[in-house]
């Protein structure tokens, strides 16, 4: 194992000048083998955590078998610092966890809860390992995970940061959510990402975090020393010229990942069965990728991004295009151009896809200074899991209870602003403007206290509310319900992620999807997804959040094509 890791980076550290290393199937197989091997273990040491009142779900990692959990710090709602952290288990159950220490400035929280069954603590990487490894894994949590949905792991490249802060590291992808654990390819915990600074997201070594946390020092095994060996100089981050910089807006770019990308290009068939569809909107240039499904000019793409005036760009030529059919269930569309003898995509359904398998997508469009331009680069990432679109979300399955009312937001007290039409509250005498003062004889002083009381109840439980209407006090009983579901959040933190990605117009509502960690933007959808054997195993359909993309599997694509061929859109 160790030798494998070393072989990956030898080329990189051979000289101070950081020569462009070769990247072949051998190197890629090392990555794939290690990721595939360790993803199941990583899933056992990671859990999803949230905080009462917050819809956000993030990943935390067990660092001891006693249940010490290193988690992201989550800003509580309404300044309710007492709001407990919650552990969500894949079966839909959830429990409150103890807070040992919160370090807001580091973006982390140290929690404690007994290890759930089947879970284990993540081993810690010695600090030196950062010197020899360049590729790392980090969890990508679904914004609102589905029941039983596993955690996906994205692969990324980390740069040691130059002085004065040589114990922190920059992530190449620009992933900047604070409190995300970073693992090496041997499945060992290396670092945690910190809050965004002015420049970019950064990760701090666990031993560095322990330096200003006595609690963390106490629980960490001895072998992680606070005496850091001197770190090697950072490989020169390539400073590019302005226009080129614009193309890659995530600051650093490593020769290693460039070599890997070059390798990926060799995987895709020579006569490319994919094209670009662009529509010149009135003010915004809108573009999307597409695959060719018939040699006489039928293309398949993502429907919801298409506007009125379609043109197809293929092999350096522009063709006017017509939209023939759309399919709402799959969000696919058939577009045709006047051309013949085009190469056609061949779908393959490999028998199994293992979590950690490397996947490749051609990037046909790149955003530059003034427009979308044709690109011939590649995105690489890993397969995570198959998603069943019909399964309920983790939130819905969890025992989250609600009175079925919305409280006024302008006051801290709980005054009824509206009552859900189908909720149990609608069947009672409760009226808008009523002030809720107690629940089951426990005082309700503000929304946070109500949330806390509700968190201890189960759906269906009958509770007694004390209410004040004008000067009159009265009480009434009702059964608790589930909260009404709002459309699933993106999980894109607008504050932290800046312009890290542009998500698709339609991101959810697919019957079945492949979840992978290729960092795609809205305009990359409609492109094919290949495995390392060059087989097309899906069509990218949703840039859902940073490093989380959904693709439709061939079975869903074929069914949609048949529906569309049967009957066009009305002309």
């Amino acid at each position: 194992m160790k030798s494998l890791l070393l072989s990956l980076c030898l080329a990189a550290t051979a000289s101070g000048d950081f020569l462009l290393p070769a990247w072949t199937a051998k190197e890629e197989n090392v990555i794939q083998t290690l990721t595939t091997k360790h993803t199941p273990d990583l899933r056992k040491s990671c859990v999803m955590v949230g905080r009462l009142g917050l819809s956000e779900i993030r990943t935390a990692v067990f660092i001891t078998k006693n249940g010490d959990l290193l988690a992201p710090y989550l800003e509580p709602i309404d300044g309710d610092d007492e709001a407990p952290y919650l552990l969500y288990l894949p079966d839909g159950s959830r429990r409150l966890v103890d807070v040992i220490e919160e370090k807001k400035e580091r973006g982390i929280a140290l929690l404690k809860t007994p290890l759930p069954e089947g879970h284990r603590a993540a081993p810690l990487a010695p600090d030196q390992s950062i010197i020899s490894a360049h590729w790392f894994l980090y969890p990508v949590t679904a914004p609102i995970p589905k029941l039983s949905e596993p955690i996906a792991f994205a692969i990324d490249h980390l740069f040691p940061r130059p002085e004065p802060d040589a114990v922190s590291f920059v992530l190449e992808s620009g992933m900047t959510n604070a409190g995300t654990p970073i693992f090496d390819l041997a499945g060992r915990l290396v670092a945690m990402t910190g809050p965004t600074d002015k420049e970019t997201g950064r990760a701090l070594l666990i031993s560095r975090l322990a330096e200003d946390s006595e609690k963390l020092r106490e629980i960490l095994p001895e072998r992680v020393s606070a005496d850091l060996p001197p770190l090697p100089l950072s490989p020169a981050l390539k400073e590019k010229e302005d226009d080129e910089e614009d193309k890659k807006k995530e600051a650093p770019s490593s020769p290693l990942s460039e070599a890997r990308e070059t390798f990926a290009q060799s995987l895709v068939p020579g006569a490319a069965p994919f094209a670009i569809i662009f529509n010149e909107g009135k003010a915004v240039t809108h573009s999307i990728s597409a695959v060719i499904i018939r040699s006489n000019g039928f293309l398949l793409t993502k429907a919801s991004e298409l506007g009125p005036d379609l043109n197809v760009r293929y092999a350096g030529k522009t063709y006017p295009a017509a939209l023939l059919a759309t399919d709402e269930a799959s969000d696919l569309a058939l577009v045709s151009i006047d051309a013949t003898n085009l190469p056609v995509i061949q779908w393959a359904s490999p028998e199994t896809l293992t979590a950690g398998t490397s996947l490749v997508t051609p990037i046909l469009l790149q955003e530059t200074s003034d427009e979308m331009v044709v690109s011939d680069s590649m995105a690489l990432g890993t397969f995570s899991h198959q998603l069943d679109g019909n399964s309920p979300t983790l939130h819905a399955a969890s025992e989250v209870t609600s009175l079925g009312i919305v409280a006024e937001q302008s006051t801290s007290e709980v005054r009824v602003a509206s009552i859900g039409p189908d909720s149990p509250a609608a069947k009672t005498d409760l009226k808008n403007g009523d002030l809720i003062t107690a629940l089951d004889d426990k005082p309700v002083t503000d929304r946070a206290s109500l949330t806390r009381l509700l968190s201890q109840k189960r759906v269906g439980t009958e509770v007694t509310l004390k209410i004040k209407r004008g000067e009159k006090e009265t009480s009434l009983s009702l059964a608790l319900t589930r909260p009404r579901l709002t459309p699933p959040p993106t999980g894109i933190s607008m504050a932290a992620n800046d312009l890290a990605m542009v998500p698709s117009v339609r991101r959810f509502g697919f019957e079945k999807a492949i979840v992978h960690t290729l960092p795609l933007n809205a305009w990359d959808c409609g492109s094919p997804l290949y495995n390392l054997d060059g087989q097309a195993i899906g069509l990218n359909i949703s840039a859902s959040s940073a490093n989380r993309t959904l693709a439709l599997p061939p079975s869903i694509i074929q069914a949609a094509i048949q529906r569309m061929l049967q009957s066009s859109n009305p002309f």
Partner: protein
Amino acid sequence: MLRSLFFISLLGSLLLSAQEKTPAELDAHLRELAPRLVESTIAIFLGGGSGSGVIVTPDGLVITAAHVTSKPGQSVKVLLSDGRELPATSLGADHETDGALLQINSPGPFPFRPYVKEKTYKVGDWAIATGHPGGPIIGRPSPFRLGRILADGVGSGFADPITTNATVISGDSGGPLFNLNGEVIGINSNILMPWTGNRHVPMPSIIAKWDALMASEMIGRPSQSAMPQFEELFDEPYRDLRKEFLEALDARPADDTEARELRERPYILDPHHMQGLLDRWAPKEEGEKIPFLGLKLDLHKITQALITDITKGSPAEKAGLKKGDLIQALDGKTISSPTDFAFALKSLKETTSIQLTTNRAIVTLTPASVPERRHFPMPVAGLIPMMISDGQVESPPSIRKLTREFLAPLQPLQEKFNRSVMPIYEGDQLLTHATAITRNQLITKASEIEKKENLVIRFEEKDYLIRVVTTDEKRDLALIAVDIEGLEPIKLTAPEPEVAALVFTPTSRGLLPGVITQPSRSSPASGFELNVESDQPSAYVGISFTGDDIQPTIQTVELGSPADTAGFLEGDVITHFEGKEIESIDDLGKALKDFAPGQKVRFQLKRDEEEIKISLILDVRPAPTTDKPNRAALMRDRSLSSLSKRGGKLSKRRNDFPRVIYHDQLLPITETGTPLIDHEGNVLGINIARSLRHRSLAIPVSEVLAFYREKLSRGRQTD
């Protein structure tokens, strides 16, 4: 009741015309107004970022945005327009409307602007936005931007904002929107992707919560937890569309079977589907229309157009077309595939009657016209925490009409440049423009024509080949020669324009209006324009000290600095500043922070054994010169570009010029190379770039002349 409403609306339109100023009047008015508006605009430092604000009382009460201050009781620093940096405390913040208050903790009086207490503005009114786009920049006053009100909301900055086409971007958040009286009518809050979607918190919604805000109350959730609210919008960019759709669905008659089926579906996910149904149920007049026959084709059949379905009540049904018919021709044009048919239908310009040939008959029918497929832009997350994009904002016809009327008196100017400004084409593609400076030589934007051959100027429907005489990389100018009879050179004599002066660009589609946003200066390359950092005095003396010395002994005096002019010498020890004893370099730094450039200050020095008193006028600290781009500045510039270009096209070469005029015209990138003129038609410079959402750049006349002279002198040397 009805009558009184009618009366009010009549009065409204009377006011509208009464307020409209001529270009000359507006120009004079804005130039007079500008200094007071810029003076009251401040920058607010909080955490790692910065926002803007406006002072509204002499004792330093500031109105800003809730997403800037986030919560009450925060200690922040504010940067005044005169360069002073002062402590301040946030008062109330209303996260529902995005309005907030802030108090400067320092005795005034401060330059302030009055604010309106009720809705005194309406659609079509001029509005001025100020603030600090990209954060405060060393040596740059708050840019002044002009626009018109496109939507006159009175509620939240998110749900019912004032929308203008005065372009704002990250960093402008919290800055003011003024009316022509110089009163604050709104606060910059968030933007939509198109450049014309700039949204401001309406003043009336802040007034409604005034007492609570003054009492330092927080309304709604604080910044970070407030995110979900915006995320919801971001998650479902078509929430408004869905709402409208559901309402329309509820209103469908009971016997509408389609509506009944739709009601049973939990969710329609495709915005086009909802829009299509809405268009059918409640057709709207506006928007592009396409012909519609009401038939579906079998796409299995590659070489024929076979009808598989006919929409009920459609023109196809009325003409007697049937399922199973094969379409063979449209208006005599052979149709041999569904694609052929789609293109033939698409190419119909007018929905007059057409002739369809099928295997059964030849029928004549008139297509219905239906709205064309809409364009739903991508949602975008931005640097301003609440960058949300929904629909496209275009100036409504009423605004375009106002603009036409406003520009009418300047029509002669447009014609004046007909024989001076020429379009440059490569084949059929318009690249840029060129402006004649002699009878056969023109100036254009070099980077738009570089590495291209066979470029022509198209004039009176004839093409004239151009020859590049010389180019200047640093100013991105090219001198080209062409043989066109009757080319009229422009006069290059105008001085540099004042801030807020109205400026125009003659384009093929008429005059493009705008305003000078800031004084002319260099436009540094990406990463070279530095932000004012908090805790860094902006006032500049021009002395530096020995690094290891606590005692303020002057080591160097910068050449040409205020200290140099006043007679400071190396080795002098500063003992007093403004009458206060100075014991350390730190003391001096702290004391200096309370003073602004332009203020006169008194020093007491010890030179050998002699006590010397010197007073000097503080200058603006020059930006440090670096040979490497500043990393933070580079990230900022990239983010600003990234945000900007999602609303329209930016020039490829859009900064790094030695000296430029800054203005706010929404200049199409192919309209560079054109003259920038004032309202009297004087040429101020040559448009060189659409640079960012909130700025376009022009090379001033002096620089154009310098380029021409340099070229001439080089020419002589080689001769």
